[in-house]
């Protein structure tokens, strides 16, 4: 292994439906709390799916007021999570040349609230009343750009867009930037904030969302026989990546190593996953090869598992096929909801904390595992978190479009 291949995680940040930072989110996750609630606004009345996982803390209240009003909510959450990761890493005080600092921040949908809100202004008041900040607030590179500006990154700012794999894709991209020596520190992550009638209606029209409206906290139930779709969530998560030698030289806290990544495309359907998770399995295998590890090394998988009927069984088949039946699997969307373009980043934070703390969070609401052979065969942690000796773990992320990303983290 060359020195450039040793990439470590030195900062973590998050703002989620479970908490306004990493610590509160992780504690709520281990405590089994749910971030899901039922929408009570008038507009929801005719909607079949009425559940949402709202942020625990309003990001606008954590940002200067004038700055906040020029940022879409997706940018606000990105800035809040990135700020936590950046501060906790200490990289900003390490004298790194700004031209060697890069940002990679993904989103699935981008500034939907601005796009739709300003369209209302256009319709109601005319073109002259549309905000001059409309475009920088709605563009999908908006969260990345806002984060780049916040930390003074001049070494490149990038914004992968691959639906619900965007956050994981950002992490993979960051790994490549460091391996190819394009930067010394990379702030990576994902952000999403699109709770609005249109996306809600669109996902509902795909029959992708849970309609278990009377039981909000029990609606997101990955791998359970009674699952009926995902719950839309909002939030962001961020990680600071740098090369291990540099991080150790400056005495940084190393949470984990980012040991490898794999990216594939299903080549099967625009939205439906391959039923046996063929592309997903290939991504996991590719990530293992990249990390120089074997299936026996992997002790834990944070699954993408969104609680849709088709997706969860396809992923179970992929995990079983690529890694075997010994891994401890968890599906944290059971408590956070599905943060779309932020999901891969948030679940990578959870994967890293599982390695660091040697504990696997439980999959909530998994009362009656699906009859599917792979689901039955896998050891899916449920009811309560499980202590385990872990040295390596995988985070899966998949997105509409057939995007598959697998990331391998190892203990520091």
């Amino acid at each position: 292994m060359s020195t450039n291949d040793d990439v470590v995680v030195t900062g973590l940040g998050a703002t989620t439906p479970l908490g306004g930072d990493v610590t509160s989110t992780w504690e709520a996750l281990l405590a089994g709390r749910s971030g899901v609630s039922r929408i009570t606004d008038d507009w929801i009345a005719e909607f079949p799916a009425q559940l949402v996982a709202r942020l625990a803390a309003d990001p606008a209240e954590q940002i200067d007021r004038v700055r906040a009003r020029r940022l879409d909510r997706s940018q606000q959450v990105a800035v809040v999570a990135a700020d936590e990761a950046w501060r906790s890493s200490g990289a900003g005080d390490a004298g790194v040349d700004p031209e060697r600092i890069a940002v990679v921040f993904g989103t699935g949908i981008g500034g939907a609230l601005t796009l739709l809100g300003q369209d209302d202004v256009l319709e109601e008041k005319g073109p002259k009343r549309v905000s001059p900040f409309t475009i920088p607030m709605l563009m999908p590179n908006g969260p990345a750009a806002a984060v780049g500006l916040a930390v003074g990154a001049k070494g490149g700012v990038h914004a992968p867009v691959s639906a619900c794999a965007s956050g994981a894709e950002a992490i993979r991209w960051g790994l490549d930037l460091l391996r190819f020596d394009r930067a010394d520190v990379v702030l990576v992550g994902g952000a999403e904030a699109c709770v609005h009638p249109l996306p809600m209606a669109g996902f509902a029209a795909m029959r992708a969302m849970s309609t278990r409206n009377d039981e909000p906290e029990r609606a997101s139930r990955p791998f359970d026989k009674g699952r009926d779709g995902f719950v839309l969530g909002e939030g962001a998560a961020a990680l600071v990546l740098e090369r291990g030698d540099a991080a150790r030289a400056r005495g940084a806290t190393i949470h984990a190593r980012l040991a490898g990544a794999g990216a594939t495309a299903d080549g099967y359907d625009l939205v439906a996953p391959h039923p046996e998770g063929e592309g997903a399995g290939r991504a996991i295998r590719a990530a293992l090869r990249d990390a120089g590890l074997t299936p026996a090394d992997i002790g834990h998988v944070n699954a993408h598992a969104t609680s849709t009927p088709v997706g969860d069984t396809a992923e179970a088949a992929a995990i079983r096929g690529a890694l075997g039946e010994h891994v401890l699997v968890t599906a944290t969307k059971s408590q956070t909801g599905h943060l779309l373009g932020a999901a891969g980043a948030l679940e990578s934070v959870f994967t890293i904390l599982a390695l660091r703390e040697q504990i696997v969070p439980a999959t909530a609401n998994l009362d009656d595992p699906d009859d599917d052979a792979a689901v039955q065969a896998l050891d899916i942690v449920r009811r309560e978190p499980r202590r385990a000796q872990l040295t390596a773990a995988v985070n899966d992320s998949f997105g509409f479009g057939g995007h598959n990303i697998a990331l391998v983290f190892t203990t520091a």
Partner: protein
Amino acid sequence: MSEDIQAGLAEILEEVAGVAPADATPEKSFTEDLDVDSLSMVEIATEVENKFGVAIPDDELANIKTVGDAITYITNNRG
């Protein structure tokens, strides 16, 4: 009259650009003294139209350099 306009403009500047009302005095340059960027100037023009009913065309907006310039323009063009 111009005191009302100055106070109204100060409210807009505080809301849009975070300028403290006490700083919104006639001699202040928007870009040099108050750190108001070009997109914010467009937003300020929109708010001026909302508050005072005075539309500021782009070519006129380019000539408005100071808070005093804005007060004069609003005063002269108010119906």
